[in-house]
């Protein structure tokens, strides 16, 4: 038995209710004095309700009979704030002019409110928040809009998401587009639609299928671009894989491995640990502190420098190559589906590179270099070069085509960068 009951369709002025409150459909609740009604137990509503003040209770449940036109189907309107110590459960939609604080928020339809503080928020439809959102888990079936900052552990949204910035520490899955107006710290981000992140955003992992706009400088530990991504500033990552297309206006720094199976373009420098190209890479210059496996097309203005460089059969490199060990026309296995696609593209093609600078340079058959400057040079039958200068040893097979005679020199020309 509830401790207080309000009949269907009636208006009640309440103060403090000791115990439970049971309310019929289409009731209106006003504050007896001040602007607050307090229920020390649970508040249970049979249907739609209009609460014209702040409302506080231990638990709140509003039943609905299913979606339909008009307010008669279970919608809740609160002109003040809602403070629920336990669970706030509403079958239909709710519009709260003030803030919502609850242990758990579970709304079947849409929710419109000011700030929300809760451990777990689940909204079946859309969510629209004027203020901030603080929660551990947020689960929204439709679109989500939060004007202020968010502080969330896990976020899952079925539609589009628009937030003011903040921190989403763990997993983020957004089916639609994601936009944040302020900078965002993120954990493991998986977005199917378009993604816009402002300058200064930092994250642990980013997998994006749609268009990604990184406005200004950005950092992401592990990044996978499967659609089209554009960074208008500098971009830093620990590892970066491009299966789609990436354009960087600033400098790209990848601490560990940069893999390009799609297309990557920048008018600036690229710095990376290891490099694997199965698609197309265009940059002013590329500096790799480790190994560079080039299985597609590489184009640089000033050159590509790495400790060891392997240019795969049928690949094309424009701009100088600078390495301790450079092998041109080698069979490469970059691993993975896209690398295989790149291999198919290069079948039957001649390997072509520009100038090569190195300590140990090897040009395999059906490979063509412009000028080769090296301490030790080995050229297989069927390879071609314009000029070959060396300082220690040259092993040039029969059937090698050189436009100028092979020359041993005291000193090689300097590296272009």
């Amino acid at each position: 038995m509830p401790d207080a009951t309000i009949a269907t369709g009636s208006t009640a002025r309440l103060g403090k209710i000791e115990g439970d409150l049971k309310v019929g459909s289409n009731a209106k609740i006003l504050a007896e004095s001040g602007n607050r009604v307090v229920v020390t137990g649970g508040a249970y509503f049979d249907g739609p309700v209009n609460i014209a003040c702040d409302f506080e209770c231990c638990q709140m449940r509003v039943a609905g009979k299913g979606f339909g036109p008009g307010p008669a189907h279970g919608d809740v309107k609160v002109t003040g704030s809602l403070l629920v110590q336990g669970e706030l459960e509403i079958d239909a939609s709710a519009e709260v002019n003030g803030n919502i604080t609850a242990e758990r928020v579970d709304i079947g339809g849409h929710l419109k409110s000011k700030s929300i503080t809760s451990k777990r928020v689940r909204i079946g439809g859309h969510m629209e928040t004027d203020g901030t959102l603080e929660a551990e888990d947020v689960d929204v079936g439709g679109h989500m809009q939060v004007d202020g900052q968010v502080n969330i552990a896990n976020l899952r949204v079925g539609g589009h998401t628009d937030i003011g910035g903040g921190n989403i520490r763990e997993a983020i899955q957004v089916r639609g587009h994601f936009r944040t107006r302020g900078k965002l710290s993120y954990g493991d981000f998986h977005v199917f639609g378009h993604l816009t992140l402002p300058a200064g955003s930092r994250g642990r992992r980013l997998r994006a299928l749609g268009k990604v706009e990184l406005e200004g400088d950005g950092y992401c530990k592990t990044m996978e671009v499967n659609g089209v991504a554009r960074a208008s500033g500098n971009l830093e990552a620990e590892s970066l894989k491009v299966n789609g297309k990436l354009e960087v206006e600033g400098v790209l720094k990848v601490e560990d491995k940069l893999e390009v199976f799609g297309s990557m373009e920048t008018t600036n420098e690229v710095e990376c640990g290891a490099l694997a190209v199965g698609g197309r890479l265009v940059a002013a210059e590329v500096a790799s502190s480790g190994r560079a496996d080039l299985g597609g097309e590489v184009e640089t203005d000033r050159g590509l420098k790495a400790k060891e460089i392997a240019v795969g059969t049928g690949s094309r490199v424009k701009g100088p190559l600078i390495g301790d060990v450079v092998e041109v026309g080698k069979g490469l296995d970059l691993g993975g589906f896209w690398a295989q696609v790149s291999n198919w593209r290069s079948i039957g093609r001649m390997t072509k590179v520009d100038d090569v600078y190195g300590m140990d340079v090897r040009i395999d058959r059906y490979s063509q270099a412009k000028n080769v400057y090296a301490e030790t040079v080995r050229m297989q039958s069927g390879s071609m070069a314009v000029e070959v200068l060396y300082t220690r040893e040259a092993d040039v097979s029969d059937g090698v085509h050189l436009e100028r005679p092979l020359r041993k020199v005291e000193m090689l020309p300097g590296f272009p960068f």
Partner: protein
Amino acid sequence: MGRRDSKRSKTDLYAEVLEVITHYPEGARVTRLSYGVGVPVDRLKIIVERLCSYGLANRSVDDEGTSYGVTPRGLEFLDTFWKMKSFLEELGESTGA
């Protein structure tokens, strides 16, 4: 707070119903779903039954009534739907079915 600005295609609606169901791992009841998707209960029942017949959703009955869940095939459909939607938007195409 209107549910949608433009008319949803049948495929959009199927995907939306499945998406809302995934947010109820304990099983989604039709009344709840109707509010999330913005479709009256009688019409929604037809849609979820059709999703069940396609093997994209499943039905379970307990003391409290009927609830619905998403099958692995349904999850596969959702992933494919959103991937395709993203590709088509990229190409400037409509996803209307």
